[in-house]
């Protein structure tokens, strides 16, 4: 493996780690489409920053995108709590509205500029080792710094909020009544997801981020009995996907993010069929009547 190969695996693995930690809670809360929604809702933020500064891929762009990512989850959460529309509909109402607002802003004020999500904040992990910044006299890939910091922050957040996250995901009324501030912690989780998603888009692209949030967590759920083990297993599945996907992509000369995503999907399929208690084939084999002894 070349140093760039190692760097791609490390950046993807770090990102898989932070996404799997938060994604596990999203999957258990049936909010797995949230990162996907955020990936669309950020568009007006990008356009507004372009109109204000003329920049398309600056730090300000990421901040503008984050602001609208947070607006998306806040709108979703508010609409959900009114109880007037169902949770999934609330999400499906908010993000297309924000995406449309972005399209409208482009067509009205910036039709001459080439702005779309790909050129603005959706990076590609393939090129991540090449975009470096200077840190303590060394040239370090920007994505390594960003994903490293994001992972550290996510781990701290999950450790600190472990009990309320667990309790409010499992039994929201109990968490609220017991003084664990379940509602507040749920809002913190949503904002953290929006923030992490946007910085992750910038490093590795949208599809890989959505994959990392959902697929390792869903795979891990099939393998475990305890939520703590689920988080560890999800992180492990993420790293295996990153390593296996990068190696396969080099071997077969295919897209790196695409192959990493496909590897994660293949691991999920394996778990779906062969997981010890919940696997479809495992269950079928266990249910098959034993042959009568002669």
């Amino acid at each position, binding site marked *: 493996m070349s140093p760039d190969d190692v760097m791609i695996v490390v950046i993807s693995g770090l990102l898989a780690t932070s996404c799997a930690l938060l994604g596990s809670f999203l999957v258990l809360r049936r909010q797995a489409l949230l990162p996907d929604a955020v990936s669309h809702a950020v568009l007006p933020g990008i356009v507004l920053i372009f109109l204000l500064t003329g920049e398309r891929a600056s730090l300000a762009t990421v901040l503008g995108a984050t602001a609208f990512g947070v607006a998306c989850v806040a709108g979703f959460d508010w609409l959900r709590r009114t109880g007037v529309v169902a949770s999934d509909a609330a999400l499906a109402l908010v993000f297309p509205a924000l995406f449309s607002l972005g399209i409208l802003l482009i067509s009205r004020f910036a039709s001459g500029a080439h702005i779309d999500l790909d050129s603005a904040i959706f990076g590609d992990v393939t090129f991540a080792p090449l975009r470096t910044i200077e840190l303590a006299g060394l040239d370090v890939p920007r994505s390594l710094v960003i994903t490293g910091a994001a992972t550290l922050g996510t781990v701290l957040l999950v450790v600190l909020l472990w009990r309320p996250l667990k309790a409010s995901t499992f039994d929201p009324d109990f968490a609220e009544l*017991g003084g664990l501030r379940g509602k507040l912690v749920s809002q913190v989780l949503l904002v953290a997801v929006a923030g992490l998603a946007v910085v992750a888009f910038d490093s590795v692209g949208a599809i890989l981020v959505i994959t990392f949030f959902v697929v390792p967590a869903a795979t891990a759920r099939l393998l475990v009995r305890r939520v703590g083990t689920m988080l560890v297993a999800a992180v492990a599945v993420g790293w295996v996907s990153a390593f296996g996907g990068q190696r396969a992509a080099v071997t077969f000369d295919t897209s790196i993010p695409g192959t990493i995503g496909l590897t994660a999907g293949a691991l999920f399929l394996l778990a779906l069929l062969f997981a010890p208690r919940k696997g479809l084939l495992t269950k079928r084999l266990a249910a098959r009547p034993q042959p009568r002894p002669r």
Partner: protein
Amino acid sequence: MTTSTDSRTAAQPPSALSLREVSASYGGRTVLDGVSVEIPAATLCAVVGPNGAGKSTMVKAALGLVPSVRGHVELLGEPLRRVRRRVAYVPQQDSVAQDFPITAIQVVEMGRYPHRGWLRRLTRHDDELVAAAMDQVGVADLAEHPIDELSGGQRQRVFLARALAQGADLVILDEPFTAVDARTESALLEVLTTLCQNGRSVIAVHHDLRAVLDRFDHAVLLAGTVLAEGAPGDVLTPEHLERAYGMTPLVLNR
């Protein structure tokens, strides 16, 4: 608790749950309209009424779990914020995440979270309370089982164990006996009755009017508003039930 000079009796709050003119609405529809109840402490109380009568909403409103509530609520003679740790809630099973990966003992350990908060470790004392609670409801042997592999009755025992481990003075249960076999229902009622004999208060939303007559001390008959409250025999009269249900449930006519 025979003499009024007994310090524990003197310290007992006047009532387990006191609601005065409590109203609540869901999505624009008024579910509770001016509900006032005075449920005495150390009793096993049932909240009964037809579907849509607002039984769940009433207990949730009392616990601050419904967004738009008007009126005055006191639990154990205090506002909710001062008694959070002393009040345990066993929710309806469908409000719990069914596929959450968690073992029975982990659920019961959650009963100690209100006392330990976000970060403080559970102590040996906490572990003992958890083990004793699981023992009391007969699920000690299920400790390491994932909750999604338990039967409805076993799950309900585990959730009651969580309330016991919390050591609450008031336990509120929302439809605890749906999807529960008769043997478990009887065993759980036994545990709840013992709690009340030890001075704790229990309020349960319940459907089985026969069981309320036989085993509960106090009843509230609800149909958007309170139709009757008091001893079950005085509350579940044919006239009251006629008004609540539009008919007299057959079970009481035998």
